[in-house]
């Protein structure tokens, strides 16, 4: 029996079309627009002005708080404007638009491909370096990584969990990274372990990636304290709480953080970004993006500079097909539908999926038959049918009592609902309202 989490879960069709495509560096675009808010938390503050010359890797926006992240230029060229642009959040927000001229990297970046294993920095220096390099959670949540590495006083990290689950259908960027950058990943994990002061790291990978599992298991023998675990394919195993439950059988308490059970979870992409930042002095300005879709000409995995227009990334995979009805930034379960493909790639763009028109629209909602399928698939043990109704009736206090704040917005309930009810739409709305009420109470 392969390990997995205990409650709920669904198994959507995997559709990993690009699993066999090697990571290819995307040619430089003519212009990039780099949003100053690509992470959870306070937006960064721009430190360049219109007309400034910038190099690849140069700091262009400064972190503006504890939960915030630095932004670096992904290209060399001239700052064309600081005007707001429509980004992948669907709102016009401030961004730094740079016209590309050549590809001149900051001199301090080590551009060699040699593996550098030894790391002489102390834990504090590593965390500071991660912060300076603007690293955020690369799985899509974009939470600033240095915050996660700074273990609060009174808590102790016991184990580092590396998320190679990639439970979202379609996406293959983590899969390819694990196959092609295994050694860098291992060194990155050792650095993260040092930063956290733990001796053990567990890599969780779903069993639909046997090549990655065997490859990493083989490399891991050369490094101390790294174990690779195969997991049963089950969505949403990539959720922090589910992955911790699956790997070390501990339940993060309701409303708590993973550190309360001694665990810290980082994505494989993040571990590699940490390796590059610490060992090669390379800040986070490019990432691997899966471009895929059932009717896309060549589903691919690209190494893309942050700020590249999404339209150009899709063009490199054969262009947007004729009958495309929806384009999603991220995975099909939790990703965000784009209202324009001119939006730029950001640090959280793990994939771009084009859906054909016939799959783009939701089916008409019928009345709830109380089949309880939503209850049985909810990985947090909630009752989506009830939360949906309470949210529509604006009964937010009752929703809080029904643990709506535990909802991880994985979408399993809406996925499974035979009546096609937009359960998560309303639950998310109610969760936001309850969050406001709770914050107001604390204030």
């Amino acid at each position, binding site marked *: 029996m392969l390990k997995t989490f205990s409650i709920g879960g669904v198994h959507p069709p995997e559709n990993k079309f690009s699993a066999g495509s090697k990571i290819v560096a995307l040619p430089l675009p003519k212009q990039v627009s780099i949003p100053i808010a690509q992470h959870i938390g306070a937006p960064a503050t721009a430190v360049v002005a219109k007309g400034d010359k910038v190099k690849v890797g140069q700091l262009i926006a400064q972190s503006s708080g504890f939960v915030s992240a630095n932004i670096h230029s992904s290209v060399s060229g001239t700052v064309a404007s600081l005007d707001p642009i429509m980004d992948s959040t*669907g709102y016009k927000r401030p961004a730094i638009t740079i016209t590309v001229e050549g590809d001149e990297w900051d001199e301090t970046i080590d551009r060699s491909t040699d593996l550098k294993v030894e790391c002489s920095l102390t834990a504090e220096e590593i965390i500071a370096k991660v912060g300076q390099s603007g690293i955020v959670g690369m799985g899509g949540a974009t939470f600033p990584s240095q915050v996660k590495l700074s273990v609060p006083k009174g808590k102790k990290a016991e184990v580092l969990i590396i998320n190679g689950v990639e439970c979202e259908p379609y996406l293959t960027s983590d899969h390819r990274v694990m196959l092609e950058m295994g050694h860098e990943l291992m060194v990155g994990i050792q650095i993260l372990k040092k930063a956290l002061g733990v001796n053990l790291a567990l890599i969780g990978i779903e069993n639909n990636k046997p090549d990655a599992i065997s490859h990493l298991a083989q490399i891991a023998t050369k490094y101390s304290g790294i174990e690779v675990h195969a997991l049963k394919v089950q969505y949403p195993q990539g959720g922090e709480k589910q992955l911790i439950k699956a790997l070390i059988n501990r339940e993060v308490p309701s409303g708590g953080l993973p550190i309360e059970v001694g665990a810290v979870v980082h994505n494989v992409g993040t571990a590699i970004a940490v390796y590059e930042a610490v060992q090669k002095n390379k800040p986070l300005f490019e990432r691997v993006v899966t471009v895929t879709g059932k009717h896309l000409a060549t589903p691919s995995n690209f190494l893309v500079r942050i700020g590249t227009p999404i339209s150009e990334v899709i063009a490199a995979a054969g262009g947007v097909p004729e009958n495309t009805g929806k384009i999603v930034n991220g995975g099909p379960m939790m990703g965000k539908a784009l*209202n324009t493909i001119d939006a730029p790639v950001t640090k959280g763009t793990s994939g771009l999926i084009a859906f054909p028109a016939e799959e783009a629209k*939701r089916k008409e909602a019928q009345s709830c038959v109380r089949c309880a399928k939503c209850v049985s698939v909810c990985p947090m043990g909630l009752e989506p049918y009830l939360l949906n109704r309470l949210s529509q009736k604006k009964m937010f206090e009752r929703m809080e009592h029904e643990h709506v704040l535990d909802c991880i917005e994985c979408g399993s309930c809406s996925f499974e609902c035979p009546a096609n009810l937009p359960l998560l739409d309303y639950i998310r709305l109610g969760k936001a309202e309850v969050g406001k009420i709770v914050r107001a109470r604390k204030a």
Partner: protein
Amino acid sequence: MSSVVLYTVLMLSALGVISAVVLYFVAQKFKVYEDPRIDEVEAVLPGANCGGCGYPGCRGFAEAFVKAEDISTLFCPVGGNDTMGNAAKILGKEAAAVDPMVAVVRCAGTPEHRAKTNAYDGAKSCRIATSLYSGDTGCQFGCLGLGDCVDVCNFDAIYIDEVTGLPVVDQDKCTACGACVKACPKFIIELRKKGPKGKRIFVSCVNKDKGGVAKKSCSVACIGCGKCVKTCPHDAITLENNLAYIDFNKCKLCRKCVEVCPTNAIWEVHFPARKPKVEDETAQPVSES
């Protein structure tokens, strides 16, 4: 057989009498004193329990009203001046007259003025759409037309026009309770002075983008050119964040701003028709019903 019937009737009657006596004494014992004027005030209130006054229902308002030293801060928007007068009389006080208000929708972005840029396919709720993205047109400030305002209206006074996709307020039914104002996640609806015979002038746009951007996304957007500000003889118009706003307390309904607005973003309603002179009369709304 008859004795069974008789005993049954007697038993039940006795039970009824005993229960009644017990209930009477319990009611006496646990009686809570309430100012009888609260009931009287509640009786003259409309009984809509809409919350427009800021209190939980008419009863809550009546309690606050009776307890209040100064009643000038309390107002029932549904009942209006008449109701407030009657309620004040119960307390032997005088209610100051307040100008009647009405909800005004400040967006004129019909499909012909504001092209769709994508197709919204989520649950039919403006709040859900807002939490997702800026909207299905180029204007990120404009009305989404999903009807959160309609859902909260207790008076059936607002509906979505099928052709324009925008909410329309029925000023005869609107009680200015403000429910729609709170419900609108785009802050488009505003309570404004109803005006003499319903005559009022307002900027029917909330777009804060720069002129060019605003104009590109919607042909009847306020572009923040400031012509109206310069024209207004009463200092009623201010310009902030590329958006003009008419203070309804200062506006004297002279209509000069309406004439100079290059995008027809300023609306006049319930005025007699002007002499035909300009060609863009068609862009003006006929009335708000």
